[in-house]
């Protein structure tokens, strides 16, 4: 299991589009459980509705955890997405 902490940089937080992007990218790592946690909210990183329901705003500190096949690659990809502001 590997983990890293990132900050949400997107102006509108993790709204529909970045949530969808995260879910789509994380689904490319089957056999790996990836979760994001911030405060008392957690979400499966492959579930777009859960991610949106977490309501992560700009500035939220998020802990990403990946556990399973290819966990480091999954984590790195997730971190890259967050840090690049999901291309916004």
């Amino acid at each position, binding site marked *: 299991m590997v983990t890293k902490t990132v900050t949400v940089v997107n102006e509108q937080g993790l709204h529909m589009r970045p949530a969808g992007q995260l879910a789509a990218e994380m689904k490319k790592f089957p056999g790996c459980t990836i979760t994001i946690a911030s405060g008392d909210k957690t979400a499966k990183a492959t*579930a777009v509705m859960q991610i949106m329901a977490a309501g992560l705003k700009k500035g939220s500190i998020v802990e990403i955890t990946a556990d399973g096949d290819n966990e480091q690659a999954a984590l790195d990809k997730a971190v890259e997405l967050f840090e690049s502001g999901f291309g916004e």
Partner: protein
Amino acid sequence: MKKYLGKGVYGSVAIGKISVFKKCDAAVTRIHVEDTEKEKQRVKAAKELAAKQLTEIHEKALREVGETHAQIFEIHLMMLDDDDYNESIENIIDTQSVNAEYAVALTSDNFAGMFSSMDDAYMQARAADVRDISNRIIANLTGANTDSTTADEKSIVCADDLAPSETVSLDKDKVLAFVTAHGSSNSHTAILARNMNIPAVIGVGDSFLAEINEGDTAVVDGFTGEIIVSPDEQTLKAYTEKQKRDEEQKKLLQELKGKENITLDGTKINVFANISGIDNIGAVLLNDAGGIGLFRSEFLYLENSDFPTEEQQFHAYKRVLESMAGKKVIIRTLDIGADKQVDYFGLKKEENPALGLRAIRICLTRPEIFRTQLRALFRASVYGNLGIMFPMITSVSEVERIKAICEEVKAELKSEGIEYSDKTEIGIMIETPAAAIISDRLAPMVDFFSVGTNDLTQYTLACDRQNPDAEEFVDTHHEAILRLIEMSAQNAHKNGAWIGICGELAADTTLTETFLRMGIDELSVSPTFVLKVRDTVRKTDLSK
């Protein structure tokens, strides 16, 4: 003839026959089933069909409303594939041995409920998205016809509410307008309607649908939000004329695109726009405003729950300047008072907020706030053509202090190696009688004046703008106001300064000729009035 009132979403008048949108909200009944596998297969098939339908809708949206607004359908496709959503449906089928329709409906209620209860307006609106895709799946399951109208001729589509996908699916060629009983003007549906240029009125209420009949003639006024069903001859005639005038107006105003703001006798004047946020810039450019005569910087403070940082402000100002690509942008420093909701400022409650610690007075008594804004402004100045304007000015000493602080800020930036533009114009608002009366002393100190006629009228006529009881005592064309403006104009020009008007009076086309005669250099109005003012200028002849 019956009248109804809702919210107009797109300004245009439509006259035609009503066609009622049949919503396929076939009441979902809970049915016990034996073959749960079969139900899960039905869901799968319905979902696949839904995905196909949504892809088509997405493509139609891309063509008709552009990528930004079409994106929601991409998200709908993703939601369709969401693990939790699908697991929920399958679980319900398995554990309760029920039909697919029920499982989807229950899942929809649960997820929509979850989004509705979040404390974020954006997330609350997502509930509608969940319902939209779920209803589509259910419609596919029941085999209901999802085609909105079967009308052959163009009609006014009336519905309880329209989901985003239903709005986009409307055949623009068959729809004269649409009217819904519910809905919000910030919903995706409204946004899509605006972008599709379909006149629409929403939130007309339930009685409307109950009382209308298929084929009734109706008038839809997208400007006022009025619907008139079965209008009498007089009303119909009046609206047909309104529609004609509106179309002529739209045509004429398109003809003005790119034309100079010059009177028939050759007098030029600048026509600029007033805006309150970065989102309005599109309207400014669309209407050919020559620049921004008033950029209200308050939104940066009002939208935040704490003081906007220098970085945040710098980025906002930079964006406006860049978007206006060299056209003048005049940014007014923060103009708030105790009457506005900015708790974090810690402003004490005042008996007379209009006469109290507000605007420039806050900036001068709390210089850290002032300096932050000025630093951000000067830093941004290199990205375009910037003018900085100071509100609520009443004295020479105020202006001296302001200018001294500006010099300090510039020196500070210089010592930090940060660039700023020396060409940045400095101006003041003439919105107090004091400023107008001593405008001869103020003019030599600044590059320009801008008359804030709303406040100037209030302070000069000693009348509260917001007080409906005092309304009859307010004469916006009062000689006192016009004299103060003329005085300020003369003093400005005697001292090499230019003068503009950014208050509501600038848009009053009955005064355009008066202002032109006074030699006013610039009129700055709300984007929707820009073309009207330009048209009036071009039709004026001062030699007559």
